[in-house]
């Protein structure tokens, strides 16, 4: 349905996006995973015809989107990373405004507004001014507005950033329903691996403006088929211990976080003995050790040596 080739965007001297190839089939739910600044939003802006690329092509059903933006726009819904809503107005007024812009009117408009408010769970607060909403509610109205014209293709840019887990779950379930029940094609951007893992059939992993891996979740995890993840919880991290872990043969990546070490190790290597020994040497108290099956987070760690959320 949508095919992107060789996409590039430079802002003055910074290269924000380079060599990006991706495709999306009808009805798919595709994730675009990457840390902050990876170039996700820039890529999305170009796909949604709001930002002209420096180089590359975007084709929708075989037609060049850059030359005919009006082919794609009517079926496209975009949920921007920022809350693109008039905060001074009520949710209802916002939806009415954007609905009218898409040519809806009268009872048809009214029906649509109520249907979508129901969907995003804001029916009872619809007359309240958006500025008085909680972060999660703002995110939901931000999505609601993008659904006013029944889009077939929904692009969502980090729609759950900075909100409470409850609202987040609500949104995730909603997106899953939109894709599953209504058959809306979804391109979902996030730096939360769990979200993409939960929602998406296929995933593109982005870093420093480039796609560094892509495929179904299984394919991606297969990258780690010869590896496994060991999570060590300690009382207190110590640099000496870290150094020993890094230099240990068989440990491919080491990431630290709070009281945790995350190691990616080659499968089959019996490393636990060494690890306990090194902890003893450096006087680090190990509280627990878990061996995990790999996640997409681990894939990213494997590919870049960094965690998604640094």
């Amino acid at each position, binding site marked *: 349905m949508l095919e992107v080739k060789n996409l590039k965007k430079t802002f003055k001297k910074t290269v924000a996006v380079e060599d990006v190839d991706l495709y999306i089939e009808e009805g798919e739910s595709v994730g675009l995973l990457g840390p902050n600044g990876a170039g996700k939003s820039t890529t999305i802006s170009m796909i*949604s*015809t*709001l*930002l*002209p690329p420096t180089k590359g092509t975007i084709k929708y059903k075989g037609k060049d989107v850059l030359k005919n*933006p*009006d082919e794609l*726009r*009517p079926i*496209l819904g*975009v949920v*921007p990373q*920022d*809350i*693109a*809503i*008039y905060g*001074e*107005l009520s949710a209802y*007024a916002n939806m009415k*405004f*954007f609905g*009218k*812009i*898409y040519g809806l009117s009268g009872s048809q408009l009214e029906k649509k507004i109520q249907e979508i408010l129901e969907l995003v769970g804001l029916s009872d607060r619809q007359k309240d*001014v958006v500025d008085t909403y909680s972060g999660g509610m703002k995110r939901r109205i931000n999505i609601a*507005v*993008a659904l006013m*014209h029944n889009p077939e293709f929904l692009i969502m840019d980090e729609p759950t950033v900075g909100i409470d887990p409850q609202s987040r779950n609500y949104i995730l379930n909603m997106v899953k329903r939109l894709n599953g029940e209504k058959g809306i094609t979804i391109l979902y951007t996030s730096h939360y691996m769990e979200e993409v893992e939960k929602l998406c059939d296929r995933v593109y992993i982005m870093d420093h403006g480039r796609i560094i891996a892509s495929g179904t979740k299984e394919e991606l995890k297969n990258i780690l088929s010869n590896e496994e993840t060991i999570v060590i919880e300690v009382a207190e991290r110590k640099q000496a211990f870290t150094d020993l872990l890094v230099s240990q043969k068989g440990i491919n990546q080491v990431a630290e976080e709070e009281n945790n070490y995350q190691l990616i190790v080659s499968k089959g290597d019996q490393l636990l003995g060494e690890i306990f020994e090194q902890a003893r040497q450096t006087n680090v108290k190990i509280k627990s050790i878990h061996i995990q099956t790999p996640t997409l987070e681990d894939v990213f760690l494997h590919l870049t040596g960094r965690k998604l959320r640094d």
Partner: protein
Amino acid sequence: MFNLIKKDFAILSKTKSDLLELLFMPFILLIILGFSLGNVFMSEFSIDTFKVGLVNEQTTAKSLDRFEADLQEDGLPAPAIAELLTAAEESDPEKALTRLLQDESLEELMETQNFDSEKAAEEAIASEEIRSYIRIPENFSYNAWKSLYLNEENGAELILNTQSDGITGNILQSVVNSFIGQYNVESSIAIATQGEAEVSTDSSEYGEVVQLSVEEPINAFQYYTIGMGVMFALFTAPSLATRAFKEKEQHVFGRMMLSGMRPLTYLVSKFISGTSITFVQLITLFTLSTVVFGTFADKELGFWIALLTLTASYALFVGSLTSILTSVSLYSNNSSTVGFFGSFVSVFAFLGGSFTPVDQFSEALKKVGNWTPNGAAMTSYLQLLQGFSLQEVFPLMSRIITLTVIALVVSVWIFPKRRLE
């Protein structure tokens, strides 16, 4: 389109800070200025009782003698001569002029001071005792009669020397013109202007000012209602443009573009919003000021119609300014650019004389002031208040309209027609 404009109104009405700035502030300021500067203002800017010098170099008796001699020379029969002389004496233009200058209707407007010679009058001007004088030259009545009754000579000349091209200069010009009109001998009396030539050019700009109605002088509340209204109306433009910048920043503009809306539609909506918000703003202020202070309470329907027309054309200008600033803000990725252009508005406001009557400015500043749209609007409003008709104010108003058209063209020209970076 209506949807877009309704949205701008809705947002404005929900934004307390903007409402405060655009409606409440000018009202508060006009109250403060109206009360505190009321007295100072009247003495400095008063158009009531300004002094006019009168230099009369002729005596009616002498002119009559000369006229009689001419008639005799022409060989007219004695009874005819006697009749003509009586008629001439009755229609003495000098008497008519002095009578007019002393007329009650002008009393509260200007005070005539007689000078023995032109030299004395010049000295009075030099010492700033007076700013203008009218000179009735020797043979004035004689020349008028010759032209009127014998169709000879080129008519009489009345000399107006004025150093004031402001409102007082205009009024004097109107008085003299009105006199000529009343005397009904346009061909026999001409007006020559000396001193600063401003008056004569101005008079041609304002059209023939024949009728002078002497209204109440402009009071401080009227002046500042106009002044504050005109100035704060200007602020509507950057306020709306800042909002346009926000709409772009927060991707609401992108959302609109995704709906297939043409960027130009958006620009036009800002123009119309700017125009209609300004119109509502000014009318609200005028109404409020009239209700509370009776500012325009005693005016007739004609004045209100003229006021609405002028307000509409000024509102169109603010709309076009909104349009330019919107273009700039969509073009630029930097909010301070909007602020920078917005600050021009304050410069305009100063030059336009919203705070200090332009009469107190230097000549150069004054000229610039009248070329700022708000300055032109302000002068137009004040002239309407003084009883000038819409037609008479039109030349100034046409400046506003010209500037509006220019602003619109520029805004469309710089508007990023392509998709946005």
